[in-house]
């Protein structure tokens, strides 16, 4: 076996000077939205299900909570996270089967991910308010 010795290559990991291309932004937002959904989304979803399914009173209680503006904003953050994670995930699945791998379609599809997830969030926001 020949051990692989990595060649020293120039490296720039300075976040202030890196200008991430759109597919890169979609990718890091996929990660960030996933982290948010894990950290807060799962426990809040389980708690919400528990209370809302327990009784008619619990269901009404959750409904009242959702009427609060701060809760609406939080909900909207989750809706965007879910929409972005969903759309970007579909894009990654398509890339897995070699659809849209070339640079132009890859850029276009990442733009679509941003637009569609923001439009879905906007629609949800309008419906909430």
């Amino acid at each position, binding site marked *: 076996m*020949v051990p*692989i010795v990595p060649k020293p290559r120039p490296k720039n990991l300075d976040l202030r000077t890196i200008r991430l291309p759109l597919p890169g932004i979609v990718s890091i937002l996929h990660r960030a939205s996933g*982290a948010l959904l*894990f950290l807060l989304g*799962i426990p809040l979803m*389980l708690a919400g299900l528990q209370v809302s399914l327990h009784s008619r009173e619990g*269901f009404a209680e959750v409904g009242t909570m959702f009427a609060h503006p701060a809760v609406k904003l939080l909900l909207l953050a989750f809706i965007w996270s879910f929409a972005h994670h969903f759309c970007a995930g579909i894009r990654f699945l398509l890339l897995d089967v070699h659809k849209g791998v070339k640079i132009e379609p890859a850029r276009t599809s990442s733009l679509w991910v941003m637009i569609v997830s923001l439009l879905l969030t906007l629609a949800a926001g309008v419906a909430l308010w």
Partner: protein
Amino acid sequence: MVNRIVVGAHYGLRDWLLQRISAIVMALYSVAFLLCFLPRLPLNFEEWHAWFAHPVGKIATLLFMLSLLLHAWVGVRDIFMDYIKPFGLRFSLQVLVILLLLVYALWAVALLWSI
């Protein structure tokens, strides 16, 4: 041809596949869920309760939950592997996340079966 030392056969493939299968399960469930509930807004308790009380809804929801927890595990582990270099810290966090996800799994099963 370069000879590589690959540790743990199929180790990466299994997680890669798990991430994608769980993603597809969740995507299908989410679309079905939204198609069912969006036209019925504003919801009432009976409709909401009926979805989870029905055996099909219950099992589909449970499948969604288990997919979610496995998916979260692969994702969180990837994040830890990328950003947390000290082994002890990373290992401790991974154990913590596994325990947390197990608690969530038990919570999900308990709450679905109490309906």
